[in-house]
């Protein structure tokens, strides 16, 4: 989701008989739903997979500031501007908690940021789509945060303690964002014909990208099994996607907007909505770097980092001088 297609560091699930005593004790803890804490022993692959997943999640929160930040200076009322600023501020805060969770695994924020900027780590595909009209801001809160919540509520039960606790804290704020996004969407959908057109346009553009946030379908998803066994991942991509679609379709209907996919139909037998298969080649293109905004997003982040170098250096130099002066005075 915010972490998509995380390669498990090893291949396949290790059978129990091949495990060392340490590994077996570790797996027993996970099976008993006992959280793994930073000082506990853990397999290297578990650590590496988690760093990748938490890091990608953190990067998503940070890069996610950009498509929403795109509308802060154009927000139509003072209240909407405040809501949006507060949301984007929360997302940056989520980035901070998540980098801290990754730090408990021995990976520094600076290192993760370096890997992102070198193109060696990813962030969620969804943030490579543009925000083109004001309704996109409502739609992002409603759909993107909504999809994130479905994933992250499941991740509250993830086996790594600091990640699980970060999810509990983050989910509360994401729910608030989703509600505010839906509220903004209602204003648009129930507003003037032009506003309704913006709402429909936003929904049409963001729908398939939002359902692709859960990653490829389970049959295509090669690295899930070990992550599931370790409870780094708790539910499969398809389960989460279906849950998101089931909760969202009635919300679209309430808004009186046209369904963004003609294949969306209630299937009484399954007890779920059917939907059209997304164009997976698009997801793979976006993940490979060919989404509509990949280049702009990365350029913006790298530029912010490079332009800020003198600031970080200056503040560090000052902190050192101050410490030296204090030392000399003692």
């Amino acid at each position: 989701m915010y972490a998509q297609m995380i390669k498990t560091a090893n291949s396949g699930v290790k059978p129990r008989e091949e495990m060392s005593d340490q590994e077996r004790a570790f797996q027993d803890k996970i099976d008993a739903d006992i959280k793994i804490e930073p000082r506990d022993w853990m397999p290297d692959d578990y650590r590496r997979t988690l760093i990748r997943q938490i890091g990608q999640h953190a990067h998503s929160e940070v890069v996610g500031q950009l498509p929403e930040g795109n509308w802060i200076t154009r927000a139509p009322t003072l209240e909407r501007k405040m809501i949006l600023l507060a949301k984007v501020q929360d997302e940056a805060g989520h980035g901070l908690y998540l980098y801290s969770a990754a730090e408990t695994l021995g990976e520094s924020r600076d290192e993760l940021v370096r890997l992102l900027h070198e193109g060696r780590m990813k962030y969620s595909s969804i943030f490579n789509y543009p925000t083109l009209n004001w309704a996109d801001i409502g739609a992002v809160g409603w759909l993107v945060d909504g999809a994130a919540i479905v994933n992250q509520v499941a991740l509250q039960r993830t086996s790594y303690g600091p990640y699980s606790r970060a999810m509990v804290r983050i989910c509360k704020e994401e729910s608030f964002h989703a509600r505010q996004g839906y509220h903004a969407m209602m204003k648009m959908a129930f507003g003037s014909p032009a506003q309704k057109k913006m709402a429909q346009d936003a929904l049409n553009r963001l729908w398939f990208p939002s359902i692709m946030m859960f990653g490829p379908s389970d049959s295509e998803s090669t690295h899930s099994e070990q992550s599931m066994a370790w409870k780094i991942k708790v539910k499969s991509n398809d389960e989460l996607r279906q849950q998101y679609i089931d909760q969202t379709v009635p919300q679209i209907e309430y808004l009186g907007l046209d369904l963004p996919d003609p294949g969306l139909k209630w299937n009484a037998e399954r007890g779920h909505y059917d939907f059209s298969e997304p164009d997976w080649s698009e997801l793979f293109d976006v993940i490979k770097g060919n989404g509509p905004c990949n280049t702009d997003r990365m350029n913006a982040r790298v530029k912010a980092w490079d332009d800020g170098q003198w600031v970080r250096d200056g503040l560090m130099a000052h902190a050192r001088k101050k410490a030296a002066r204090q030392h000399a005075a003692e």
Partner: protein
Amino acid sequence: MTDQNHLLQFLLRQGDNALILSHRVSEWCGHSPILEEDIALANTALDLIGQTQMWLGYAAEVQAEGKSADDLAFLRDAWDFRNILLVELPNGDFGRTLLRQFLFDAHQSVLMGRLIKSSDDTVAAIAAKASKEVAYHVERSADTVVGLGDGTAESHERMQAALDYLWPYVGEMFTSDDTDTAMAIAGIAPEPSTLRDEFHALVTRVLTDATLTIPGGRFSHKGGRTGEMHTEHLGHLLATMQWLQRAYPGCEW
């Protein structure tokens, strides 16, 4: 000008300063040197919009033409804006943005200290609420200015360049006109010139710690708070800020 009109002008000056600076600060969102600064800058922008709502909300009430704070923010043209030029200047680099913030915060901290004793209860209440935020802002912006001024050779040089650029816009905060005199007589707000010594003491202390040199010239740009002549930058800022309200009038958002 009637007393009510002077009060309205005074309130627009406060509200427009907060609104325009908030816009500038919010331009940093997602682009700052470090995540903690993204959060801090968003926080500053948020506080300033909150203050805008209070000042412009009261301005709309005093104006008594059935307008809202949003109407004043989104539907006035540049010539009706009453912010000082300092806040509408483009951000420049991070150092200039933070130095501008400090100069503004320093002035606000002195001003709010006086306005909490305003004879106008609403002005006093707004100032009481804003002064808590301003105290926090000025502490933070001062720390950053000191850190960057007294940091590396490069950061020092950039901060000195920022100060040289911004200093000619400081004087406008202390200029005075009929509105200021009327506010002072009514006990609503102090004459701007009476804030100068306290402002100077604070700014000199911080800039000295920052190892920066206050430029010698006494010239100051002005025309923003009277509305006589803004910079070219304000029109572009408003074109962005007001676009949706102008393009789709009369909607609820």
